């Protein structure tokens, strides 16, 4: 473990401890309902930026991965009554395979063509699930939550804690990738794929690896959503809003550092929760659109980029 890893792991432990403490002392269920959604988006945004941020392949298939995660959980629960941990683990494995498939797409496509292909993939998977009678089809499927395990008082509290665990896992992985040869290789192929290949960077292997990790994390983040809503239907599980929301979160935070998507997801996630309560969910989408346009136009490097530029300017001022 590197020296600068110690503060990170202490922070992660404190974060989990605070979450666990919350589930023990707060009685009101609403913070957990809202907090769960925000944490879920943190995982999705961090996972997205492993491929979209480091490697520069803009994946619009977040909703495909999310939906596949949801329906893997639904399938396992309905067929075998599998416990939550198994659902999540299985979703991660399925997500890794789906990620591998998306990785193969990058063989032939770059830039906008890759993005369009991932949208197409989403709709194709959604339609297949819609036509799968066993999983409820277009009408959706209801699920009965199993009894909650100690020490939690309610199922939502437990899901909240599980999602917090996933956040730590996702951030730890993203942080490791960023600092290791994998991250540097992805950065190189983002800047110039041909040049990277020529200087001996194993671009294909790296891209596949990034897709597999990103896909596994996204699917894992989606798996508990079935139990959270006690209901799943294809048009909301595969909704394009997930893809665009996650993209917006990553771009708002900035993709150069793992903290970017975390900050972006918390910022946009909290805003959306507040808006959904106070105004309406339509305004939510409007705010999403406006924030996306604003940041892409005015702050292409996101908040992280703004902070960096500010620091650089100040350093130059002092010198």
């Amino acid at each position, binding site marked *: 473990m590197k020296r600068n890893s110690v503060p990170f792991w202490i922070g992660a432990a404190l974060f989990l401890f605070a979450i666990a403490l919350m589930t023990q002392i707060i009685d009101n269920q609403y913070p957990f309902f809202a907090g769960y959604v925000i944490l879920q988006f943190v995982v999705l945004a961090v996972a997205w930026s492993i491929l979209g941020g480091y490697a*520069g392949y*803009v994946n*619009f298939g977040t909703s495909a991965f999310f939906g596949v995660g949801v329906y893997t959980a639904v399938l396992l629960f309905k067929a075998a009554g599998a416990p939550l941990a198994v659902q999540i683990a299985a979703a991660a494995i399925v997500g890794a395979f789906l990620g591998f498939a998306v990785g193969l*797409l990058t063989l*032939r*496509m770059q*830039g*906008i*063509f890759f*993005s*369009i*292909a991932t*949208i*197409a*993939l989403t*709709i*194709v998977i*959604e*339609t*297949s699930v*819609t*036509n799968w009678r066993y999983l409820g*089809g*277009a009408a959706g499927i209801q699920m009965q939550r199993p009894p909650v395990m100690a020490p939690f008082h309610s199922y939502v509290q437990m899901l909240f804690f599980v999602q917090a665990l996933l956040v730590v896992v996702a951030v730890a992985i993203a942080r490791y990738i960023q600092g290791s040869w994998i991250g540097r290789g992805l950065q190189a192929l983002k800047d110039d794929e041909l040049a990277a290949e020529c200087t001996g960077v194993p671009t294909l292997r790296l891209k596949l690896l990034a897709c597999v990790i990103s896909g596994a994390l996204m699917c894992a983040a989606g798996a508990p959503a079935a139990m959270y809503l006690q209901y799943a239907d294809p048009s909301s599980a595969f909704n*394009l809003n997930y893809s*665009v929301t996650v*993209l*917006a979160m990553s*771009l708002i935070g900035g993709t150069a550092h793992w903290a970017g998507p975390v900050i972006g997801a918390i910022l946009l996630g909290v805003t959306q929760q507040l808006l959904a309560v106070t105004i309406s969910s*339509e*305004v939510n*989408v*409007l705010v*999403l*659109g*406006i*924030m*996306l*346009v604003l940041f*892409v*136009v005015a702050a*292409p490097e996101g908040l992280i980029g703004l902070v960096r530029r500010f620091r650089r300017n100040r350093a130059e001022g002092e010198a």
Partner: protein
Amino acid sequence: MDLLLDAVVIGVLLGCFYAAVSIGLSVSFGLLDVPHVAHPAFLVMASYAVFFLNDRYDVDPLVAGLLITPLLFFFGLAAYRLYYETFERRGTDAAVRGIAFFFGVAFIIEVLIILQFGVDQRSVTASYIGKAWRIGDMRIPLRLVVAFAVASALTILLALYLSRTFMGRAIRAVAQDQEAVRLMGANPVRIKQWAFGVATAVLGIAGALLIIVAPVEPTLDRAYIGRTFCVVVMAGLGSMSGTLIAAIILGVAETIVLTLFGASWAPAISFAMLLGVLAIRPQGLLGRRS
């Protein structure tokens, strides 16, 4: 067998309609390389404008489409100017940020439509809507025939514009080699802006056809992302004749699948074909790039 023949005839009619809604994208994405995912949102917006004129002032939808065409042209000019200033001029990864930008724009349009018109389906009234032609056992809705005729005319006119007029050739020249155009003393940005304006103006009629063919709802643009991009990519970026052929292939494929497997598979057809084309033959049927 009769059913299949029916499907093919309807498919060809539908295909020409798809060509009309895609032809603008064929210019903006195919020729100008603008990742215009908001194209279907612009289209739905035009449909709602047509609906408004038809509902409030009882204007025929096609006339309404013509009326909003100049507005859309200027809207297109402004949209390209904004895109150019913020992305193309800054250079690097313009396409990637551009697609995020246009998604944001599409979402904003969706919500504004919802806030103004609500989430219900809307349709227009005109004398040719609701009637049908009978040829033997075959029943062809008149609205599809109208859409077919207008769409074919629109597509052919735009193709002629691009190949015969001075400005049309200038647009294709920019698509081929922007630097060469600059060296000839022309301003490529002005030409591209004009082209984007034309591509958006075409949506007036296309939007009218959209609401003639079927009722529209605010989030209809999502289904048309697949259809329009499928047609444009399959056509081979920027090929006008390819657009017509690809659209007819898509139309026929959709109606055949609809007849054989049912409506629930329909949304996936265009996206599956798009995925297939991207994976197997990215340059499309009549690609301009080898």
